[in-house]
């Protein structure tokens, strides 16, 4: 393989640092024993196996490091974590700071609302309070939509998904706009999951990728091929079914989030393209 | 004028005043002395109701101080009081110290109060200092201001609590001189002090206290001639010796 700083570091220390999220259900989150689990996390572990094989190490320690949306990029850059797989969207701004692996998931941005709210799609939001999570693409889209269509919405930017959902649940907002998979994830931990529905036409498609340090093609190559292998071999679909079509912790709810056409295409033809 | 009848006071189980009685007639000057902690300050503060007491009665110009129905602020407005540490208000100029109570308590207008204040400042020899702040005056000057402040309220009697004991020796006399003059003009005064020179000069009677009790209450001549109690004798010999 090419000379890679990251691989050298991993080899020298015998340790790889993994960045994970704490409550991005079902991608990367804690179960009730504070173990990290989730779809992205399992794929990341596959990458770890590939690295271990590549370096021919008998033993490779992993160090788990929770990251937040605010500090994940600096932490990748300064070497605190070697790879971060969670629910990070691959876009051009971020590509200036970090590299992205092959896409691991593709989502559409949609709305969650109370079943009896009467909201069916985005135009129904005119004049209402709508919540979204600060710093996400949904926030940008929502603001743009508001201006373009003169919907006159009040947009609430909550700190994280949990707070966004709380805002929705307590009636401060009628709808919560976010990546559809995450919306299903929030539903999975709601008090009464049956009260909520995900509606609306997707406003955008986004590609989630794992973040790596820039300018380390040697490492990226290993990561990419590990992900590609999982996808083409059908392993990724098995993981998908485990997290999206079966009951998952913490409440044993089944998200029933059917594999989309985009995802099917991705599994056939893995790539690291951003959608922007 | 002032009538103290069987007054007792305690903090918890500690007895500060025990069955104290005395009378002060109009125009009389009474000196109160006694060792530290004997209750002198407490007694004098009881007279205008600054300290509550549990038993006995104090009458001031026909008004009962201990009676809960008494309007204490109004009563106190007409009793002048001077403290050991002057207790001028440090954030007000001298003239404001003198006028504030006249305006806010007696409801005089500002001009009238200012005139009165300046007159009294003049009397204690400090007219030129009216614009300064207390912190800029010497101790003796501050105490003279405090006396002037009390006099501004046209008091019917004056209470002094060791007015010279916080002063440098040089300044004691400038304050005592003002007090002597006041006494000679016929002001009713109760003075806690160890300045026996002052007592000799103007007091009509001397009260000696110890452990919260009034042990001696005698005319000046009697007191300095042959004090009856041994405790008073010892005390006098100590403070007069050096």
């Amino acid at each position, binding site marked *: 393989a090419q000379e890679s700083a990251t691989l050298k570091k991993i080899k020298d220390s015998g340790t790889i640092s993994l960045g994970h999220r704490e409550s991005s259900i079902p991608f990367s989150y804690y179960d009730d024993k504070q173990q990290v689990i989730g779809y992205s996390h399992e794929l990341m572990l596959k990458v770890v196996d590939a690295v271990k094989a590549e370096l021919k190490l008998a033993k490779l320690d992993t160090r788990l490091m929770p990251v937040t949306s605010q500090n994940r990029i600096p932490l990748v850059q300064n070497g605190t974590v070697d790879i971060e797989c969670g629910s990070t969207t691959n876009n051009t701004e971020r590509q200036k700071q970090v590299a992205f692996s092959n896409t691991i998931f593709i989502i559409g941005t949609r709305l969650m609302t109370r079943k009896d709210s009467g909201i069916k799609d985005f135009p129904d939001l005119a004049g209402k309070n709508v919540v979204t999570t600060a710093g996400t693409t949904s926030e940008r889209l929502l603001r743009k939509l508001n201006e373009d269509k003169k919907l006159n919405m009040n947009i609430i930017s909550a700190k994280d998904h949990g707070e966004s959902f709380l805002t929705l649940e*307590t009636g401060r907002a009628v709808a919560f706009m976010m990546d559809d998979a995450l919306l299903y994830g929030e539903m999975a931990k709601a008090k009464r999951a049956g009260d909520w529905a995900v509606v609306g036409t997707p406003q955008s498609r986004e590609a989630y990728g794992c973040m790596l340090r820039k*300018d380390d093609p040697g490492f990226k190559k290993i990561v990419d091929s590990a992900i590609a292998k999982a996808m083409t071999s059908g392993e990724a679909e098995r993981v998908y079914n485990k997290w999206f079509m079966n009951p998952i912790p913490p409440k044993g709810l089944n998200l029933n989030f059917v594999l989309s056409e985009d995802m099917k295409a991705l599994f056939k033809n893995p790539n690291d393209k951003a959608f922007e | 004028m002032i009538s103290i009848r069987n007054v007792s006071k305690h903090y918890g189980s500690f007895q500060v005043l025990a069955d104290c009685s005395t009378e002060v007639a109009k125009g009389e000057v009474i000196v109160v002395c006694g060792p530290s902690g004997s209750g002198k300050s407490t007694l004098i503060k009881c007279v205008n109701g600054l300290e509550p007491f549990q038993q006995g009665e104090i009458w001031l110009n026909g008004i009962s101080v201990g009676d809960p129905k008494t309007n204490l602020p109004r009563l106190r407005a007409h009793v002048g009081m001077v403290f*050991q540490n002057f207790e001028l208000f440090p954030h007000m100029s001298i003239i404001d110290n003198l006028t504030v109570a006249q305006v*806010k308590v007696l409801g005089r207008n500002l001009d009238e109060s200012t005139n009165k204040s300046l007159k009294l400042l003049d009397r204690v020899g400090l007219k030129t200092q009216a614009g300064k702040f207390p912190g800029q005056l010497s101790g003796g000057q501050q105490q003279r201001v405090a006396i002037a402040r*009390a006099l501004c309220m046209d008091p019917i009697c004056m209470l002094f609590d060791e007015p010279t004991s916080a002063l440098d020796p040089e300044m004691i006399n400038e304050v005592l001189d003002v007090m002597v003059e006041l006494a000679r003009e016929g002001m009713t005064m109760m003075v806690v002090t160890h300045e026996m020179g002052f007592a000799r000069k103007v007091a009509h009677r001397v009260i000696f206290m110890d452990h919260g009790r009034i042990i001696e209450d005698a005319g000046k001549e009697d007191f300095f001639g042959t004090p009856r109690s041994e405790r008073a004798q010892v005390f006098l010999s100590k403070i007069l010796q050096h």
Partner: protein
Amino acid sequence: MGYHWNWAVLLAPTPSGGVTYLDWLLSGLKVTVALSLSSWILALVLGSIMGVLRTVPNRWLSGIASAYVEIFRNIPLLVQLFIWYFVLPELLPVGIGTAFKQLDPMLQQFLSAWICLGFFTSARVCEQVRAGIGSLPRGQKSAALALGFTLPQTYRFVLVPMAFRLIVPPLTSEFLNIFKNSAVCSTIGLLELAAQGRQLVDYTAQAYESFIAVTLLYVLINVVVMVAMRKVEERTRVPGYMGGK
């Protein structure tokens, strides 16, 4: 370190158009300043009242004031903030709670942050006021009463004015604290300075530029406040008293 510095990002236009990222930071600065100043007024008013109540010779009043202080002092600001914003509207009668929740979200956040910071800081101001009054010689109160002032007049004309002059330095640091504490309010979504800084990171991924700019703005606030409070201190200094010389 593989960091790509780009200070020009501050002047780049934001995706919502029309404004630059620097404008975001400045609008955050405005919110921080508005929130801190208005909370400070609330804190001063409440704190002075409670501080005076703590020193009055009445068990009930001083008991109420001390319970107030203990509650607002012994729970972390962050927790109090969440309680004001998320929990309280749920505990209010449904009508009022719902009415509050239908207000403009920005207003809801600002109101919650304002009340939270104001109450939190007022407990601290209260303790300073109490300490200030307590540090005055006992004789001051006696002297004022002896002149015929009533107890409220004694506080109004003698004790409180002097106590405030004495506590200008500790109040200055509480005042500075309120600006710093306001950074915590970004957690309920209020777009103040720290939140705008974070938003800048989210949008541009230029973390260091953002942190540095935000830190500098806080230092700037601090310097301005310190200079202003020094002026106040000089103004209120009592001649011949405590460093007045």
